[in-house]
């Protein structure tokens, strides 16, 4: 083992015999762009709706539920796709979330939610993960589109403006505290704060 490491270190440590310095640097630079671009393209592809709904677990359960909500169909035609709410926009946060998502590949391979019954049994647990994530990052994915600074309370309904101008403005509450189940159906809410 140690011999092998030593051998590779020597190969890397020695100057190149056959290739010029220019070829190596420019080639390295070009290949860097190609790989980095390829990596990001692949990463972006995993953020598309096509990718998310490629599996029946997502397509037949949560995607169907999304389609009835205002985040899918509304008066102005601006809509949210899966990754808008479930994947952070910032690069480092995004990579962290993508690494967490390796658990989802595990789930896919072993079929943890491959039937409607299994999904229903896991609904509360899965929902709680998302509530916890949004609570921890102060509903960052909501705020990527819904910016508090530009909210016009006069255009909101009485109840909405009351809550937004007090609890939300003071930072006592964050979006997800009240707006649970806005894009998917809710699980059994027994014991969830605010649902008694």
């Amino acid at each position: 083992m140690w011999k092998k490491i030593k051998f590779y270190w020597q190969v890397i440590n020695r100057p190149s015999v056959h290739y010029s310095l220019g070829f190596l640097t420019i080639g390295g630079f070009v290949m860097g762009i190609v790989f980095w671009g390829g990596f990001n393209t692949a990463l972006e592809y995993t953020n598309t709706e096509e990718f998310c709904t490629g599996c029946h677990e997502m397509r037949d359960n949560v995607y169907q539920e999304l389609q009835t909500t205002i985040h899918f169909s509304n008066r102005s035609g601006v809509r949210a796709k899966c990754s808008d709410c479930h994947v952070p926009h910032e690069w480092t946060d995004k990579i962290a979330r993508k690494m967490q998502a390796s658990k989802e590949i595990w789930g896919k391979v072993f079929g943890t939610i491959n039937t409607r019954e299994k999904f229903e049994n896991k609904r509360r647990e899965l929902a709680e993960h998302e509530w916890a994530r949004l609570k921890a990052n102060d509903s960052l994915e909501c705020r990527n589109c819904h910016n508090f600074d530009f909210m016009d309370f006069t255009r909101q309904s009485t109840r909405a403006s009351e809550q937004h101008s007090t609890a939300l403005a003071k930072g006592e509450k964050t979006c997800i505290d009240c707006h649970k189940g806005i894009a998917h159906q809710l699980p059994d809410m027994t014991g969830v704060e605010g649902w008694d």
Partner: protein
Amino acid sequence: MRRKSREGMKGDVMMKKLFIAIGILGVMTISVHAEDIIATYRGEAALNVEDNPPVMSKVVNKDLKLKRNYPMQPPTIPHKIDNYQVDLRTNKCLSCHSRKRVEDSQAPMVSVTHFMDRDGNFLADVSPRRYFCNQCHVIQTEAKPLISNTFKDVDDLLKVKPKK
């Protein structure tokens, strides 16, 4: 009891047939008349034509309590309830209107009658038979009524002097 003769039986059958024929004729004439008289929800359009539906009216979302037309009327919902989930898993309405939640939400609490089972015994929580809010409580829209209504408030009825 007197046994009917064969001819008598024949006469009965004839009479029955006659009655049925008269009956059918009567129904037909009534239905022809009904077409002229009764205004239907589908409006003036002929049966084989699809009429342009009226514009969908907006839901009243003012959060102001409306008058009840009679004391026991289930109060109407003065706000939008789009996508409110009321099913086996959860009840969105109760997340504001339940006994424990009204302190935070300042929404009216579900009536105490909702805690009673059908024998009048009070339960700890909303009775299952009162769980599905939309069975009685409905939103209001700004739509004009399609058919005029002669309903009178009980107070107005009391003011009417009886005819002698």
